[in-house]
């Protein structure tokens, strides 16, 4: 009988099925790896186990006890603990105080620091971790902070330890001691669910591997019976169902953007060229540095070195304003947080980047503003009865169109799209693809960041793959497919 069983778990969010009749068995004492692309449903699955998400259907069985849903409290009681990428430690408290946070050992009403330090030291001794329990958490490196998190879970008698991308923030040496810790915990009988994008460590640590894709479990297999190629195929193996609007080959020989040895903001030595009329796709897993690269080009974050040449002119933006003046536009990743002004109407959103241009003596030419907004409303079909509608009342797809309209109005030569179709419906998606085509057909260039493999393959003329802040591969249209891209992105 498995220690943890998920039976037929389904969870729907508006417009998307995050978990689709998921069945998963986790045996006692195993290291069970969970792999899949961004958005495959791994995070939602964890949330079901921690009680953060209530599934619409299905049962959770832990040690023979059956639940329709867990609560955070119940989850802890049943021995489930999670190590997140973002730690839940209080910087200003000591290591021991963090381990016993919320259940401090007391003498009467006074906290018994000594007893806590002793018990913490005892846990560290068992786990062979070398940390002073009285040290402040703020003084520890990321790797040690993670070990404190693990010790905290152990001190709560965690039977099932879920680790979400635990190696992502660590250096190579720190990752090694993490692997040793995982093996030690396993030897002591703790069951571990290990989520990772790094295939090497998955093969090194796990007994069994479960592949998720599109909210479903694709397959669970013994790690010994499979290999990297097969795994990547399973992860990406969806049929290319969507059709992408055809665009005539319009890539010119003229280089529009040239980037040499660009570094900073977590990316290193980036070299790339984009030609006029080209869609350059930027592939990589979350945290690979794609958005970070876009931020450098757009002047959001300072660079530490390198050169950027746009249209023959060297460019060194310190603010987005300067990048925009040079002809760059950025359709950001997080629409609501970075893109739209929810309390402002459609017209005001569209004109935001060109207000100074359509003003005389500081006064906005409202007729011109209206004309431009009207023009883009028509040409990219923003569905609204009136331009005075506040943007918060629009659907996600229409909000995205408003952002694109804002940038088209600024007449850029290079448009960076960061996850251009995230969370929007199919109809709006294909309209946005058509817009991208129109942009490049009119001689502009597009840099497209996307976690949707299909979209990258369907839209790009060329794909660059990033990993750990570096370009690790460049694929021409005839070479790239889901396997080649994922293979490059997930290695290491």
């Amino acid at each position: 009988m498995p220690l943890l069983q998920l039976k037929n778990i389904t969870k729907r969010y508006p417009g998307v099925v995050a978990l689709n009749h998921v069945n998963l068995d986790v045996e006692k004492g195993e290291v069970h790896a969970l792999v899949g692309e961004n958005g495959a449903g791994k995070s939602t699955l964890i949330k079901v186990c921690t009680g953060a998400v209530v599934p619409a259907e299905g049962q959770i069985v832990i040690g023979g006890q059956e639940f329709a849903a867990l609560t955070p409290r119940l989850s802890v009681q049943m021995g489930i603990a999670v190590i997140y990428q973002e730690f839940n430690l209080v910087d200003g408290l000591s290591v021991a105080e963090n381990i016993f946070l919320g259940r401090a050992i007391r003498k009467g009403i006074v906290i018994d620091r000594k007893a806590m330090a002793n018990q913490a030291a005892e846990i560290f001794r068992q786990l062979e971790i070398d940390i002073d329990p009285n040290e402040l958490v703020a003084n520890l490196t990321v790797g040690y902070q993670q070990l404190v998190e693990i010790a905290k879970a152990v001190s709560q008698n965690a039977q099932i330890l879920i680790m979400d991308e635990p190696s992502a923030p660590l250096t190579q040496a720190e990752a090694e001691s993490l692997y040793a810790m995982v093996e030690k915990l396993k030897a002591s009988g703790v069951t571990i669910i290990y989520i990772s994008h790094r295939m090497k460590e998955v093969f090194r640590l796990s007994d069994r591997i479960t592949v998720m894709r599109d909210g479903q479990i694709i397959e669970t297999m013994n790690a010994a019976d499979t290999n990297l190629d097969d795994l990547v195929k399973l992860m990406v193996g969806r049929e290319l169902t969507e059709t992408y609007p055809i665009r005539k080959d319009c890539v010119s020989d003229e280089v529009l953007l040239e980037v040499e040895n660009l570094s900073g903001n977590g990316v290193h030595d980036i070299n790339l060229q984009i030609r006029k009329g080209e869609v350059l796709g930027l592939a990589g897993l979350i945290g690979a540095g794609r958005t970070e690269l876009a931020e450098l080009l757009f002047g959001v974050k300072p660079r530490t070195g390198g050169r950027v040449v746009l249209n023959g002119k060297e460019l060194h933006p310190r603010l987005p304003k300067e990048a925009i003046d040079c002809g760059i536009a950025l359709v950001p990743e997080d629409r609501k947080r970075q893109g739209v002004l929810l309390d402002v109407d459609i017209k005001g959103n569209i004109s935001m980047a060109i207000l100074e241009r359509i003003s005389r003596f500081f006064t906005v030419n409202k007729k011109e503003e209206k004309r431009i907004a009207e023009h883009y409303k028509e040409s990219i079909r923003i569905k609204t009865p009136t331009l005075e509608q506040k943007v918060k009342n629009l659907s996600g797809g229409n909000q995205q169109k408003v952002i694109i309209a804002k940038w088209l109005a600024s007449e850029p030569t290079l448009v960076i799209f960061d996850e251009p179709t995230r969370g929007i419906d199919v109809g709006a998606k294909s309209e946005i693809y058509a817009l991208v085509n129109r942009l490049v057909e009119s001689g502009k260039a597009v840099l497209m960041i996307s976690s949707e493999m299909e979209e990258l393959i369907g839209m790009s003329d060329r794909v660059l793959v990033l990993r750990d802040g570096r370009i690790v591969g460049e694929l021409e249209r005839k070479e790239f497919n889901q396997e080649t891209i994922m293979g490059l992105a997930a290695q290491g």
Partner: protein
Amino acid sequence: MKDSSPLKTIGRVAASIGKQYGIYLVLLTLVLFFSIASENFFVSSNLLNVARQVSMMGIAAVGFAFVLLLGGIDLSIGSLVSLVNIVTAWLMVNAGWNPVLAVLVALALSAAVGFSNGWIIANLQMPPIIVTLAMMIIIEGVAYLICKGLPIFGFPKSFAVIGQGYVGPVPIPVIIMAVIMGLGMFILRSTYFGRYFYAVGGNEEAAELSGIDVKRVKYLVYSLSGFFAGIAGIVILSRTNSGQVLSGKGLEFDVLTACVLGGVSVSGGVGKISNVLAGILVLGVLSNGLVLLDVSQFVQMVIKGSVLLTAVALDCLQHRKKT
């Protein structure tokens, strides 16, 4: 689950009416109440008096509303009124300057103080409430240092026109307030700066990514807040005919109350000058009416504090969904 209880439906409709016209209803109710309660209230001389009393607040409120739109706050305007008051008086009396020159220098000073607030807030990323609180204490101290705690008087006669003069039946301070409120409305509605205030207050990150130089917007807004407070300081000086350190004491709280009553959100991005005017009139009518009814000054304080608390509570309830 649909909620069909009639009480809730009425509540919802009332809330949506209240959101748009609430402040005018409050104003109307107060005017009716005081008209009935005191025969001296609804007479033209008293109403003009109310208008003149609120004009200082109205002048300062325009800049203050800009700051709130930006998602900030400026607690230093009361002290700044006092400082401008003292500096102008000192320049005219002790240094013997021409009133025009003294006024211009004092206004430049007030804008400079505002700019410093903006610069510190934008570049050191400090919370506006702390920066402007510190500034409030600093400039109050400076004002005391200049006048040594004593009132300064003996201005040229012509200077009194600003605060005490009339055009026809209308007091000049009221005209100044009208002009500045008109200017405020124009800035918000028609210039790109106004759009930037809403944008930065509504979503600073999106504003920056849309090419707005957020720092410059902050410099401008806090400078304007200082500048308008400076004008209020000059008007008060001319009206009282003597420079006094306490002349602006507590003004920031009255202005804050008026702005929030007028629907300017303390979380930024939402608000209109026309409704701020209504908020100011509510406060003006309230204090005038209470004086006419012989309500003690201490009771008035309790009432004003409660009004501020209620106004902010309503604002937070309205904008809770946003955060």
